[in-house]
């Protein structure tokens, strides 16, 4: 379970270009729930994910994962509980290391690292099996450096790495936005399969309204650092793309009137 309690973050505080990124944001996601986050640029989506992962330190407020307050926990310790797939395929993998070594790093995310040999035969065959589920042929390229893979392959690898250790929370940060439509589809299908099979508590940020309609139990729309709209349950099922876009345009009109 994830809970964000009145999170507040102000950038450039006291300066002319002061920007309120998170303005008393409250959000909760039940265990096993799949939330889709939408919102225009600058609405606070990335700040929210960064605050959850620990990369962003809040001015005030709390982040609670499965009942434990992790607000003061550094990024590398939070990583034991949560996994994240970034928009940029380069960020989620170690380019100069091999596919197998990247898988090993992900496997050890929530374990203690020892002085035993990292890549042993058992592990290699497990990785082969897990990568073959993607159907991209990555299982035959375990010794290939990740920098030689295409963006789609890298992103698929990031996804497999993220869902591997059954994290308590999975964060997807526009993870298909940088991919071509066909690859984006493959990665998205793989995401849904993994999330459903493992019943992962998931928070996905997307600009793709079709994805927001098709996937997840709940749509959360952010605006100016707070939750503007939450659609779940039956309402979510009936929501269409034009509905969602409608919420965007209402907001733009208001902004237009206010200015």
């Amino acid at each position, binding site marked *: 379970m994830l809970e964000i309690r009145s999170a507040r973050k102000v950038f450039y505080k006291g300066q002319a270009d002061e920007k309120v990124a998170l303005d008393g944001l409250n959000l909760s996601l039940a265990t096993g729930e799949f939330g889709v986050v939408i919102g225009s640029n600058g609405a606070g989506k990335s700040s929210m994910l960064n605050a959850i992962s620990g990369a962003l330190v809040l001015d005030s407020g709390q982040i609670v994962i499965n009942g434990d307050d992790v607000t003061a926990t550094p990024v590398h310790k939070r*990583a034991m509980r949560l996994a994240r797939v970034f928009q940029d395929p380069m960020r989620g993998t170690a380019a100069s290391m091999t596919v197998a070594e990247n898988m090993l*790093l992900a496997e*050890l995310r929530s374990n203690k*690292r020892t002085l035993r040999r*990292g890549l042993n035969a058992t592990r290699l065959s497990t990785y082969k099996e897990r990568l073959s589920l993607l159907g991209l042929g990555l299982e035959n390229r375990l010794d290939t450096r990740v920098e030689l893979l295409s963006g789609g392959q890298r992103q698929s690898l990031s996804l497999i790495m993220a869902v591997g250790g059954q994290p308590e929370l999975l964060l997807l940060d526009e993870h298909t936005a940088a991919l071509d439509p066909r690859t984006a589809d493959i990665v998205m299908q793989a995401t849904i399969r993994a999330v459903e099979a493992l019943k992962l508590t998931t928070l996905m940020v997307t600009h793709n309204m079709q994805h927001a309609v098709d996937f997840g139990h709940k749509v959360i729309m952010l605006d100016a650092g707070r939750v503007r709209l939450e659609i779940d349950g039956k309402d979510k099922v009936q929501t269409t793309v034009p509905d969602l876009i409608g919420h965007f345009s209402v907001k733009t009109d208001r902004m237009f009137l206010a200015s």
Partner: protein
Amino acid sequence: MDILQNTFASFVSLVPVTLAQSLILAFVVLGIMIPFRMLSFPDLTSEGAFPLGGCVCGVLMAAGMSPLAAIAIALLAGFVAGCCTAFIHLRFRIHTLLAGILMMTMLYSINLRIMGRSNLSVFGAPTVFDWAPGLQPGFPASKIVVAGLIALVVFFLLYHFFRTEKGTAVRAVGANPDMAEAQGINVWLATIGGVGLAGAFSAAGGALMVQSQGFADVNMGLGILINGLAALMIGEAIVGKQSVLRQLAAPFVGAIVYYQLVSFCLAAGMPPPDLKLATGLFVLAMLALPSLKRSRGPAPARETVRE
């Protein structure tokens, strides 16, 4: 013909001495390679850690300590120096190169303080090279055997370490620090430990050098960095750097080949003052080579390092 023969003869006569020297300096090259390649942390500490190891070892030997204990304490001093450089970079967000320059400058004064004067003779004191079985102490052969054995042990230990779970994590910090952190790796710990380890190797090289040459000098580190870099570049050109094994072998192979090359140049009549210019030009050429090769193609990927 005569000149050629003379050059060759004097080069050959110097081969064993140079080999002994290069095996000792291979530790410094290792101390340059680990931060640079494994951690993407270009580090200049070795220019200060090498004489630090030498000075600490010299003072302790002069005080009558056993040569092995003297090396161990020198190693520890180098480790602390490396840790300090990494800490300066991480805590104050100072560029790695500047952090290294600060550290090596401060170490110069510290080295002078440790010795109390600019050089110290420890000639005649027992050294680790006396322990080579069946060989007369003080001759190149015993140095080659002892330094070579230590190098072998260090090489295999490091090779094992960098393939363990912890070692893979350390390499991940060099490959992509953000990703490493997101995978639960403590970037601070890995960087401080790794750069510290490198400082320890540089200092160990200094300590062995002092035992080999019989004196310690605060200026013994002058130019060691550029020599080490040149050796590393040669090593990587010969054995490559695609795998952990190759990357670890490069400092040793490079040191051996580089110092033989230097010895050959000197035997051929190159004036010693020109050596640094030649070495610098060589390192420049090796670093520039990838971008020269690809001048027509797309913009080459720059060496990615942490800033």
